[in-house]
């Protein structure tokens, strides 16, 4: 600091600083077209925010910002987060913005809020995400939409009639959003099936991940781990996708789905159980500076250390759609002087059991690490007992944009319980992207 700095500037904390994770609230996640079938994104996000406000006494409080998003969004919800905050008990003077990065959305909003806190631009903020696959937007058929828009642009009655002459009966068929990549025409599961086949991921290994996810989540509920992370909603007190009695024998009976294109002779391995189901839900996480938390006697569970986002060319390149985290993690490790083995907890979003197994296989493969990651040595393996110790998306379900805001406080609380330590978060996202982060307590 030059000596001419004003006293106002010198009263500022040393920057950058690490943003603290104070706590969280989410609603239980519900399988599609079930408990939350009639709730909108705005309903669920408002409810999750109000639960957070109640837990931390934030009623009427002006926070630095709320950053949230949804993947499947009605056009009327262009200001989804702002509308939710206006309907919540937070101060109406709390600014907001919407972010959409597919399944990476609310880990990315947590990074955005944390970075502003780190730079001293804000003292507190909420990162959140919400998605409904039940109250999903249905679009009119693209041709019908163009006809109607052309009629709307027409300036004369004759012009309107001329435009409407383009109407055809077939245009009544609406377009329902599909979990499909626009440039490849393949469902996310079909992409994952290709990657699973490419890495030779076995059915049994996928089912083992699945059983562990359900058993770990069930045990975490039993010991009350989620008591201060969740508020009941519309009659649900737990994620209703959870099958505490999942067994390998039971899962082995399921018929595979998602046949991998281009592998006519490869046996399909992905089932409804080792793939995440469509789910509805919302999650929020409160971040702040240590000072802000201390002033309010609020806890600090953990701090955000670093984050990295990667993207891969799954369109014409030969990388799998969900493999971006395999690239993001080594870049982040390198920057922080860490190895893959330097963590106490590994929180990997289980989009599909095969996705995280393919990522682990890639990190153990010297050729992949050399040719794709430019590393002399493979990243290697890590102690699987530290993976998703309180369950993850296969058991909780996966409302796309809510997943990061579920995982961040889960890891923060695990680190806080342990007293000290370091954890890794990894989330893959549609569009060939991936967001990863490091937390420490």
């Amino acid at each position, binding site marked *: 600091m030059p000596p001419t700095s004003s006293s106002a500037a010198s009263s500022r904390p040393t920057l950058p600083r690490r943003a603290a994770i104070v706590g969280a609230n989410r609603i239980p996640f519900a399988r599609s077209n079930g408990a939350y079938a009639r709730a909108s994104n705005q309903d669920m996000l408002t409810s999750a925010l109000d639960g957070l406000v109640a837990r931390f006494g934030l009623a009427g409080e002006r926070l630095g910002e709320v950053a949230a998003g949804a993947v499947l969004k009605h056009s009327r919800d262009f200001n989804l987060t702002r509308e939710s905050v206006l309907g919540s008990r937070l101060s109406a003077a709390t600014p907001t913005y919407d972010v959409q990065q597919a399944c990476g959305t609310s880990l990315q909003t947590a990074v955005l809020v944390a970075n502003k806190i780190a730079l001293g631009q804000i003292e507190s903020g909420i990162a959140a995400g919400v998605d409904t696959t039940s109250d999903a937007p249905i679009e009119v058929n693209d041709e019908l939409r*163009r006809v109607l828009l052309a009629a709307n642009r027409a300036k004369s009655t004759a012009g309107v009639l001329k435009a409407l002459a383009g109407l055809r009966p*077939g245009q009544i068929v609406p377009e329902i959003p599909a979990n499909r990549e626009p*440039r*490849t*025409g*393949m469902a996310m599961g*079909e992409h994952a099936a*290709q990657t699973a086949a*490419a890495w030779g991921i076995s059915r049994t290994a996928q089912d083992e991940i699945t059983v562990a996810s359900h058993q770990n989540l069930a045990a975490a509920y039993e010991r009350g781990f989620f008591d201060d992370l969740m508020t009941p909603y519309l009659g649900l007190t737990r994620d209703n996708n959870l099958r505490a009695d999942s067994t390998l024998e039971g899962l082995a009976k399921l018929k595979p789905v998602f046949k991998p*294109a*281009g*592998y006519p002779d490869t046996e399909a391995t992905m089932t409804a159980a080792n793939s995440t189901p469509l789910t509805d839900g919302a999650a929020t996480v409160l971040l702040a500076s240590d000072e802000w938390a201390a002033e309010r006697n609020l806890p600090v569970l953990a701090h955000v250390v670093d984050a990295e986002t990667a993207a891969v060319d799954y*369109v*014409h390149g*030969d990388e799998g759609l969900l493999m971006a985290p395999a690239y993001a993690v080594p870049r982040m490790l390198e920057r922080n002087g860490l190895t893959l083995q330097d963590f106490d907890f590994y929180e990997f979003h289980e989009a599909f059991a095969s996705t995280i197994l393919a990522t682990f296989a890639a990190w153990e493969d010297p050729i992949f690490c050399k040719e794709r990651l430019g590393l002399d040595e493979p990243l290697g393996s890590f102690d699987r007992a530290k993976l998703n110790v309180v369950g993850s998306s296969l058991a909780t379900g996966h409302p796309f944009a809510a997943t990061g805001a579920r995982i961040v406080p889960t890891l923060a609380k695990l680190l806080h319980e342990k007293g000290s330590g370091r954890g890794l978060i990894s989330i893959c996202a549609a569009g060939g992207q991936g967001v990863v982060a490091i937390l420490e307590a």
Partner: protein
Amino acid sequence: MTVETLDGPPTLGVLYGRALLTARSGGSTLPDRRLDLPGVRIDASLVADYDHVCGFSVGGVVPPTYPHMLAFPLQMRLMTDREFPLPAPGMVHLRNVITQQRPPEVGEPLRVAVHADHLAAHPKGAQVDLVTAVTDADDVEIWGSRSTYFVRGAPAPDDEPSAAPEPDPQVGRLPHAVWRIPGDIGRRYAAVSGDVNPIHVNGLAAKAFGMPGTIAHGMWTKARVLAALAGRHGPAFTVDVVFKAPVRAPSKVYLHTAEADGGWDAKLVSPKGKDHLLLTLRDA
């Protein structure tokens, strides 16, 4: 070669009607004349319609397949003449090579010139090339194409088929995209291209011409593949496509792509591995 200068583009519907209804004398040699259409200006709104159907982004460069829209009515005018040796209805596109020096711009005055070339025997009939040159205001050719059309069972002088080697794209085993070809794509492409060849718009007519059902326009499949490669090549290039087997509408096809030395290779294949389209694109 005589040059016939037109004062406006021919109307395709009329040409098809004439081709279907009038008796042809069917000469055995190609007409020794070139059709010239000066003062053509590309219309942004028509390009937008074309973009919507083929998957290009609206407002970007004019798609490299778009000048075919300007040339096709002239090709049809030549091919529907009573003296033209091959009948136009039921004609199938076998190959299309486009060489673009630069993309044409919306609104600039262009001259489109078309002539027929190389009538030849084909193992199952006859084939002919239609050659197009698009020149700008400085009389510089900015875009050229050679379209090879085939007519099943038609007689032809015992000439060797066009000798240029077919493109041989080198792509990997894994498809990069799975396309569900919509059942109405023939009708939609006909609406923007004017190419109302019955094999694309009517199932019964398609069967009458020996097709399994309505098939997608070859130039639509070429456009769709180029749209998928948007942003991955420069403004000047040659893109050579062979249409190996018609793509039925509706159907499912796989797109395979690979970056090649100085360009891109691509293939459209059926899920069972039958080649539909082979493409090589080489930057100039």
